[in-house]
Structure formats: C-alpha cells, structure tokens
C-alpha cells in the first residue's frame, strides 16, 4: 500500500469520528509512579536493539577465535616470557577462561560496558522518545534508576557471559580442567570456579567506573556516540597516565590503576589487598559520577 493510498484510507475513516463521539467524558487515570517503566518494559525496549545483538555475537565469537588461533598457531610459546596467563592458556578450560578475561578486560569489556551504559539515555534523547517517557510521566529519578539497572544488568551479563562461554569453548578445544595457577599449583574444580567468580565480581566492580561515567555522559549529551566515546577515552587516558611511574603515589587514585588486580585471586591464599583498594576506589568514582548524573538530570531542560 503506497503512502497516497494510505492517506486516502486515513482521511475517510469516519468511523473514528463516530467512535470518538461515543466516548464517555474522561476520568482521572489510575497512575502510580512506581509502576512506570518497569524493568521488563525497559529490557524489552533495549534487548531488540541491533547493538545489543552485535555485542552478544561478538562475545560469543571472540573465545572461539582465540581458541582457533591457539589451535592453529600451535599454542603459546612457552619460551617467550610474555605473561604467565598466556603461556598457560591452553592447559584447559579454566585457564583459557582466565586468559580470555585477561585479554578482554583492558578494552573489549570496557567498550561493551560503555556502550550499554552510555547509550541508554542519550539514544532516547536522539530518538526524541525521551521526552515522551518523561511526559507520561516517568519520574526523572526513576527513569535513571530503571535505565541504570537494566544497563548495569546487561553489562554484568556480558561480563559473566564472556568467561563462562570461554570456559565452555576452552573445555571443547583443550579439555575441561581445573585452573593451573601461573604461580604454581593447581586448584580443584570447585576452587577454580570460585576464583573465577571472584574475578568476575571484581571486574564488574571495576567496570562501575566506566559504567557510571558513561551514564553521566549519557544524561549530559544528546549524542550516544559522544557518551560511549567519552567513557572509553577516560579509560585510555587513565591507562596512559598509569604508565607514568613518576606519578606515584597519585597514580593509585587513577580510575583504571587497579583494573587488573583480580590476578591476585590466583595466589594460593587469595590476596585481597589490592582488590579491596580497587573496589574502594571504584566505589568513590561511581558515587561521584552517578551523583552528578542524578543532580544534573533532575534539573535538566529536556530540549531534545
């Protein structure tokens, strides 16, 4: 049906007018702010997006590519002192998952988290759908809360999916085996899984910084790309500054300084020190970024 035909149909719908004429006078609606934009609704809005599906496919394909690379490339060269996690990557599923995590934490997962959290409000603004949500009305603080919960859940899911899927892929390619610590010693399967869980939990905590900054940018700008790119840029800049040892001890307060402290979860008794520091640091950054996001958005004039 062409546009022209459609318009003719629309113009001659007298039935609508009769229907409108038959309406009873309007009554105040049953409106409860706490039922607006429920999590299920927001999930439904986000899950069908192309970018969500691309990320999912990427996370599923990446471990397979790495495994194939090791398989075809003949495994890591034990003699190049390129990192203990690389050289033990092919010993089994758990080590493969550890290596995949190590390879992804620095950038891939950062981009994924920045994407989920940075694009969530900014894309609504760019589609102009934000103003219709707010006019329904979804209370602003609630909109942020619901959006953050959904974006955060998707980020956690990505963080969880990657190592779990890598564990499975590693198991298929290299056999299911408990983790062999690069520090010497082998953990049993339960211990390996527990440590993997600690690692994923810690990495999620670290991602709070990226997530909260991306979210702050998301409510501040109307361009999703700007929000995602801004958050990723922070990580890149922080990583560069972290290389400057002359910045000691101020370096310790950089948002990404403790990014890889999860490797301490591989020492024989888990060494929690740096992970505690990193988590504390991330909480402070997240609290500040999110507070600014809430305060800004609460007063913001929505002109998009």
């Amino acid at each position, binding site marked *: *049906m062409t546009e022209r035909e459609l*318009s003719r*149909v*629309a113009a001659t719908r007298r039935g*609508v007018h009769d229907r*409108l*004429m038959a*309406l009873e*006078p*309007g009554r*105040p*609606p049953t*409106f*409860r*702010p706490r039922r*607006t*934009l429920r999590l299920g*609704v927001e999930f*439904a*809005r986000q899950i*069908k997006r192309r970018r969500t599906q691309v990320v999912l496919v990427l996370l599923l394909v990446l471990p397979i590519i790495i495994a194939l690379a090791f398989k075809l490339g003949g495994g890591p060269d*034990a003699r190049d*002192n390129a*990192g*203990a996690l690389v*050289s033990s990557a092919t010993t089994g599923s758990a080590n493969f998952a550890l290596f995949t995590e190590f390879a992804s934490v620095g950038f891939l997962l950062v981009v994924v988290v920045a994407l989920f959290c940075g694009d969530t409000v900014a894309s609504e603004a760019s*589609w*102009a*759908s934000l103003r*219709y949500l*707010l*006019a*329904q*009305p979804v209370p602003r603080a609630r909109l942020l809360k619901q959006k953050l919960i959904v974006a955060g859940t998707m980020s956690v899911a990505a963080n969880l999916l990657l190592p779990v899927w890598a564990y499975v892929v590693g198991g298929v390619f290299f056999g299911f085996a408990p983790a062999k610590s690069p*520090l*010497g*010693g*082998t953990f049993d399967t339960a211990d390996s899984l527990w440590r993997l869980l600690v690692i994923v939990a810690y990495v999620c905590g670290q991602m709070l910084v990226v997530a909260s900054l991306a979210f702050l940018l998301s409510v501040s700008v109307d361009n999703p790309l700007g929000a995602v790119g801004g958050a990723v840029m922070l990580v890149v800049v922080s990583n560069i*500054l972290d290389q400057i040892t*002359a910045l*000691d001890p*101020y370096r*310790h307060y950089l948002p990404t300084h*403790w990014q890889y*402290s999860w*490797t*301490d979860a591989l*020492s*024989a008794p888990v060494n929690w*020190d740096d992970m*505690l*520091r990193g988590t504390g*640091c991330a909480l402070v950054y997240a*609290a500040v970024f999110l*507070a600014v996001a*809430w305060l800004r958005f*609460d007063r913001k*004039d*929505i*002109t998009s």
Partner: protein
Amino acid sequence: MRRAELLSRLRTRKVLIPLVLVVALIAIGVVVAVTSSSNGYRTVSKMITGTPEPDGTAVRIDTTLYLPDTTPAPAVLLAQGFGGDKSGLAGTARTLAEHGYVALAYTARGFGDSGGLIHFDAPDYEVHDAKLLVDYLSTLPQVDKSKIAVAGSSYGGGLALLLAGYDSRIKAVAADITWNDLSHALFPNAVGEDPGVFKKLWAGTLFGNAFSSQLGAALDAVGSDAPPPGTPRGTVSCGRFAPDVCAAYQNAASTGTPNAAMRALMRQASPASILDKIKAPTLLTQGEEDSLFPLSEADANARGIGATGTPVKVVWRPGGHDDSSEGGYVATSAMLGWFGSVFGDGVSGTQPFEFSEQGAQLSSDSGRLRQQVRQAPGYPGIGGTPAQTRAITLSGPPQQVGAPAGGTPAAITAVPGLSGILSTFGAIDQATDALSAVPSQTAGFASPALSSSLLIAGSSTVQLTVSAKSTSDATLFLGLRDVSSDGTDTLPSQLVAPVHLTGLTPGRPKTVTVHLPWVVHTVPSGHRLVLTVATTDFAYQLPQDPRTYTIGLTGFTGALTVATSNGSVQTTGGHPVAWLVVGVVVVLLVGLGVAFVIRRRRSVLKPRADLSDVPVSIESLIKEYAGGYRAVDDVSFTVERGQVVGLLGPNGAGKTTTLRVLVGLITPTSGQLHVFDEPVVPGAPVLARLGAFIEGPGFLPHLSGRENLRLYWAATGRPDSEANFDTALEIAGLGASIDRRVKSYSHGMKQRLGIAQAMLGLPELLVLDEPTNGLDPPQIAEMREVMKRYAQTGRTVVVSSHLLAEVEQTCTHVVVMHKGKVIAAGATAEIAGAGGLQLSVSDPQRAADVLAGAGITATLVPATRALEDVFLGLIGEDLN
C-alpha cells in the same frame, strides 16, 4: 554584558568538558613536574693517594665526590663490585646525593684508573685505602664527621664490613650480596666439614673478570701509546692481581683444594674474622638468586654481628649474582631507609626481617610473575626469634648412583649469570630440566603430596646415609625440588648444596646431617618435595676417577626439616580495608546527599482546589535561557474544559517552549503553571491526565509502530483497560505498515503515529504541537475533525500552530503569541470579529432607520474578518 555572555558560553557543555580535561592535564603535569624535580647535587673528581704497593710504588685512588645542596651532611663511602669501577656506582651515588648525603664513589685499587694491584680486600691494602678515604671525608667541611657510613655490593660489600670492623669512625654499614667467609663461599660443604668442593666456575669467572678488565686497559693503552697505569710488566697471566693472590688462586684452581697461602688470604679477606668488632648498625641485603654468595653467607654475618648486640637488619632481596638484572633497587632503597633510620632517630634492638617471595603474584600490568615482600618481626636466631620449621616425611629405598670419570656429563644447575634464565624455563619446560639432573647419577627421595602449601624460607636439613664403593671420600650435590602433579619439577633458585665427605670406609654407610640450599620458595598444595642427590654438577670441581655411591635415608623413610616462616605479606600504601570503607562511606554519604538535594528541590507550589476543573492555568510564566534570552516572557492564560485552544504565533514565538513547560520537560524561570489543581513539575503525577505530542514524533526506530505503542503504554504502568488501542490505530491509519519497523516510516506516518500515541489513553487534556506538519490536505481535514469531536466529549485540546487558517477552522479559542508574549487571547470568533464593521457609516442606527424607511430591511452584524488579518495586524509593526 560581555562578561556575562562569556560566562554563559563557558557554561555550555561543549566548552566545559574540554576545559575540564585541559585543566586536569595541566594539574597532572604540575604534579609530575613537582614530584619528579629532584634535589640538586654537584660532583668533584679527584685522585687520592692510597696505600703504596709493597715495592713502594705509589698508588692513587680515582674518586668522585657527590655533594648535595645542603651541607654539612652525613657521608657514605661507596665501594665498587669486582671487575667494575666508580662509574658503576654513579646511579647509587646520585640517589644518595639527591637524598641529602655526601657520597664518595671510588675505583678500588687494581681496577679502572686507580693504581696498584688487587689484593682482594686485604686489610693492609684495600681496607687501608678505604681508611684513607674516610680520612679524606673527615677533612671535608661538607661532611658531618659523626655520621660516616660505608656501603657496597659484593666485593664492595665485603670491604664495607671489613672497614666497619677496622675503623670505628664508621657509624653505619650497608653490605649487599657479599660473603662471610671466602672459604665457605668458594669451597662450600653442606655437612660443615673442611675442605669443601671447589666452586670452579664462579672462581674462574671472578678472576677472569679481572683479567679481562686488564685486557681492556691494555687495548686502551695501544691507543694512548702508554702502559695502563699500575700494570707491572711480566705478570700478564695474573693481570692486575697481586702476585701472592694470583699464585694462591692458580694453585687452588689446579688442585681443587686451598693451600695454606690461599687459606690465609681468604681468612684475612673474610668479614668472619672481625664481625665481633663491628659496632655500627649493619644492613645486610642478600640475593635469593645467588650461587656465589648464597643466603647462608648473610646468615653467618648477621649472627656474628648480632651476637655482640649490634643492631642488624637482614633483607633477602630478588636477584643476586645469578641474576643481576633484579633487585638492585631493593638494595638501594633498603640502604636509604637504613641510613635514614641510623642517622635519624637511631636504631636499636631487634630489626624486622624482610624477604621476597618470587613469582608469588601476577603483575597486574603485564600478567607476568612478580615477587611479593614478606616481613617477620625479627631475623631467626637474632633477638630471640626462633627459626620456624615443618617436618616432612621423605621415602625411598637406598639407591646406587655413579659418578663418571672426569665428571662429564655433568648436571647443569646454576651457571654464573645464566641460571636466572634457566629457572624461568625450568618451571615450564621439562627439556631443560633434564639438564639439571642426570638420571643414572641421581638418587631421589620423595615426600607425599602436600596437603597445604608450604613456604620454604631458609635452609632445610635432612639425614642421609652415604657409602662409597671403593673410595674414602664422596662428592655429592643435594637439591630439594618442587614437583607438581603433572611431573614438572622446579629446582628453587637453581641452587644445590655441595657435600664433600672424607674418612669413609668403603662399603660402610656413614650417617650425615646435610644443610640444603637456602631458598625462598612456595610449594603449592598438591605438589611433592623431592630430595635429589647427584654425583655431578657442572659448576664445581669434580673427582676425576669414576665412582659409585649408595645413598639412602636413615630408615626407609626419613624426616626432612624444612625451614619456613610466618612472615606476613607486606602491604604498600595504607590499610587496604580502609579504601573499601572509604568507598562505602562515600557511596552512602553521596547517596544521602543527592536524595536530600533532590527532595529539597521539589516544588513548594501547593495544589489549587479552585482550579480543579480548569485543565490548564498559566500565570506569569517566564522562561529565560542562559545568556538572558527570554523564550517565554510573562505568559498567562487559562484553558477551560471542552475547549479547543489554538496557540498561534510565528516561529520562535515561544509556543513550543510553553508546551514543554506544560508537560514538565522544562523548568520555568518563574511563574505558576497548573494542570487541573496540581502544579506542574517534572514528573508530576497529574501529567498522566495529559497526552502530548510535542515537536515531532519520538519512537524506537528498531521496533514496529505497534510495538512502540504497546511499550509506550506499558511504560506508563497503567492498566491496558485505560488505553484505547483500536481508536489510536485507526487515528494513525497506518494499515499493515503498523507492523513494520518505525525506521522505515515516512515523516507523515511517524507524525500520525505520534498523534495516535498522544491519544492512546484518551487523556482529559490533549496537547498537540504542530500536529498537521507533514500531513497532506485530506489528512489535515481529518485531523481537524478528530480534534473537534474529541473536545465535544468534554475533553480539552491545546494545539499550537503557525497556520492561521487551521487554527481558525479548528479552535474554539485562540491565544496569539509573539516574541514570547501573549498579544491576544479569547474566543476565536471574538478575536476574529474584533475588527469592526464591514460597512462604515457615521450613524448605523440612523442608517438602518433610513434604510428601513427606504424599504430596505437592515440588520446590524459584526464584521467577520479573517483571523489572518487580525494576526497580521497584531504583529504587523514587526513585519515591516
């Protein structure tokens, strides 16, 4: 005005974010500049007269003095390692000077540009030279004479200890990777008997070093046409070694045992002889990767010095003679800390003991292995801290092992300067491990798999029975290996303990207690410890005749006593838990703060009961944007039930801004705005009684029109029964396209879907902003009808437009806006009719009467002028 403009421009995000970034980068740059700018120093190089050679040859010592900015200051005499010269000390000297010390770096006699021969730390020569240098330091006005220290590494460390024993002016000592007794170091024996097994590879390397430095000097001499300074002619094979040292070494190297002269030389060059004389607080740093001067040498020094009550601090650091790339910074920073304490508040009593656990952590930067530092309150054996041990049971039958004639093939464990690399490979590659134990030459005794991980820190001991088949002596090399469940084995630090047994009766077993190598190593749980007893080792002088030994434990099983430690892991930079606590507290405080601020910001406007039947009431609404631009300037009007109110005005009149304020998207600068009785603030529940279509449609492009409407309604949280999907879909009139993605819609289709969305809940108040944009004439006519009928149900419609005809045809009432102000408001008929009469007569009544008298029926009617004329008249002055 310009200032205000500038400030307001600065406030906009596009300027603010880069500005914040630039400021942050500048701040970081300043911090870097401040923290990395070091204190200055200057250097003075000078040749100082040293101790003459026995033949009377004058000897001059090449020195460089590093003077800090602030003097007088404590002074540190820096002694060089074997084979180097003062240039190798430059880094350490600079560091000391930057920390406020006077540092005197010098080239020892027999090396570099200094004159004289090498007497190997002899008290009469090298030590005496150092005394002369202390004399020199004492004459300098920049030196605090009560605070003179000596420091050195290896050869220099030996000298530091000896000087402290011979010269009471020395008030602090830092000796790194040095020896206690050269006879133990060069002829070690793990059963404590004398003599031990000659460490031929290391001894050769040491002496070869001095030869090659002489070769270098000789090559320099070719260029300069002069003999290298202090080189006596005719002693080419001895290089710059003193003849007596040279002869003693050559004898030891050929026989494998020290003669009397060698013993005497080694004794006088050993701190062991003067430890009880050292009264200066002493720091001993020893490398964990050191087959030349193992940790046992530092242990003997520490016990000797500590026995007289002198404070001693022991640090086992990474690296050592086997791996010189590691650990130098640990030694330097430990030295700085030690001198700081000694010359600061002073040190006394038991000193903490630190050691580093190699590969105990993964570097979070590179994923490579790195060490972690552990600290115990005191060094075992000094100050009453007992050594900690754990008993492990070994088992294995007695085993016969052979030693090949000439000692080849030999096992390769620690090769000078190479074993660091070997142990790296050894942990991962079994092929190289095969080198460190030759099967037919090695007996092994294994422990069961350990149930918990075990930190070995020190020397373990074990009892063995050894019998030789046909000789009265035996040479053996013991190693304690860490074997994982998959068979990979590691020899910690690649160290073996050489054993030389004498006085054996052939065929009769002798029981001996052996001290295994001093190592720091963590054996993970599940691994086993394996004691290996080998007959060969590449680094040592081996018997030339073939031999056969039988090695066994004292029973079928034997006890291995493993030295361990309860040292706690050193944490850097405060308490880790504090960081987490701070993080959680900040989260709570910030969370409470934000909640408080947002609550305070909530409008203080009260509901107005008198307006409960007035859909829209706007009073004195002003919206001023940054920069002082007033988009809406003092707008007031009300909208009653059942009206279709047109908001009319040219572009930029403030219509859309007014509507955005009406639905809570924009906060007004001032003024009151009520929808029914409730004041409008962002998110006010009363907005649920309002359906809006503002400045174009907004949909999720990846969903279909139908899904968009469904999710829109679901997001309101209101029951489906309150939504009228059928009506909305009919208004949208999209037909089958409703199930296509919105992405593919034309502008008009989106527009109609947007209007349908606004009407979905059949709201009491419908707000439409330019609803007919992009619609074609039939659709516009349709929309007009929809709005009229909608209002007839008692609901209210507010519609904005810049199309006069449209407003005139649709609206019952009209509000005309221009430049943010309301310039006319009222019933459309009134506004349109406010223009006067079409026939202008001076007296209409009379005119009517006249007309009636003339037989013409006349009625007075108000002229209906087109709204357009009124509108243009109202804003006319601006159009011209």
